[in-house]
């Protein structure tokens, strides 16, 4: 299984200035301020489950932009209903990346409830028409490229390694700063 940072690096390298990136709380939100991201970034430091509906609102408001939402499996397990909401709204410009490591990483790496969720099947059952999986950088590049070209809301399930020793930087931006800089 691939570590988080190479996957995040690969994703950021595929973004363009016409995109918008919304990140759930946790490792991705903490890495992003230290990376050169070519599009506006709205990173959450609280509010599990908010990334996808937040991105949905942006995508509906700005159909000229492609919005990419990063969500964690712990967050989505808390509110899988959002998949049906996205499917019903059907924005062609929303791509969701679900980072699956089976852990509540931002709160210390506690395990999720001990069951293996078939995220791709769940998303399809909720009406998401374009679903793909990626387990390494090459797979992510291919899956993301196809997802953003799907013309329909898409979900890429990204299997990511959990490393309790990973040196994830702390939150380094205040919410006011994040909001002020986010301009579409």
């Amino acid at each position, binding site marked *: 299984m691939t570590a988080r940072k190479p996957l995040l690096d690969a994703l950021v390298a595929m973004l363009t200035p016409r995109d*918008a990136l*919304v990140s759930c709380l946790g490792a991705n939100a903490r890495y992003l301020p230290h990376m050169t991201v070519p599009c506006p970034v*709205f990173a*959450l*430091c*609280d*509010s599990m*489950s*908010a990334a*996808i*509906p*937040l*991105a*949905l*609102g*942006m*995508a*509906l*408001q*700005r159909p000229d*932009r492609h919005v990419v939402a990063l969500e964690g499996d712990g967050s989505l397990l808390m*509110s899988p*209903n*959002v998949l*049906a*909401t996205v499917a*019903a*709204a059907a924005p062609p410009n929303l791509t969701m990346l679900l980072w699956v490591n089976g852990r509540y990483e931002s709160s210390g790496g506690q395990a999720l409830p001990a069951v293996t969720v078939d995220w791709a099947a769940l998303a399809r059952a909720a009406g998401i028409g374009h679903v793909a999986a990626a387990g390494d950088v090459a797979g992510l590049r291919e899956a993301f490229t196809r997802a953003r070209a799907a013309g329909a809301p898409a979900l890429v399930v990204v299997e990511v390694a959990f490393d309790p020793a990973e040196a994830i930087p702390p939150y380094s931006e205040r*919410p*006011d700063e*994040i*909001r002020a800089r*986010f301009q*579409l």
Partner: protein
Amino acid sequence: MTGLEQIVAGLEAGQVSIVASVPDTWIGRLMAGVRRSSRLRAVDVAREEEAVAVACGANLAGGRGAVLIQNAGLLNCGGILAGLVELYRLPCFFIVSLRGDHRDPVYYHAPKGRVTEETLRAWRLPHARADRRGDLAAQVKQGVEFCVESRGPFVLLISGEDLG
């Protein structure tokens, strides 16, 4: 003009672009009016916290979002109000059906009716009851503009009789 029509007119006058909702009987009637508007985009969500995030996303993207839900759903929203709306100082306008007060003496709504306004005060959420004797459109527009100017939430509580 019915109260329902006035509320929709107020959303339009407040330049709301996206209305995210989980319906109850009253909000469902109101959303039927929203859907008849060519200036409002109705977004049906599965849970009320999603509606808050959708509205905030619309605001961050340059539009104006509104949330139409029942008070039961508002009571679900404490976490996202604190962790998104308040923390990031985002405008978020709510129209909430106030079920279970003296005008709606239904036993299974009454527990919500007893705690709604006390909860709003405890959460320090600016709020008001809609006044059907006045101009509902103006009250809605004022609420939307309060959110934009204060970078925060405002809750307008409505009753079924406000829609007539």
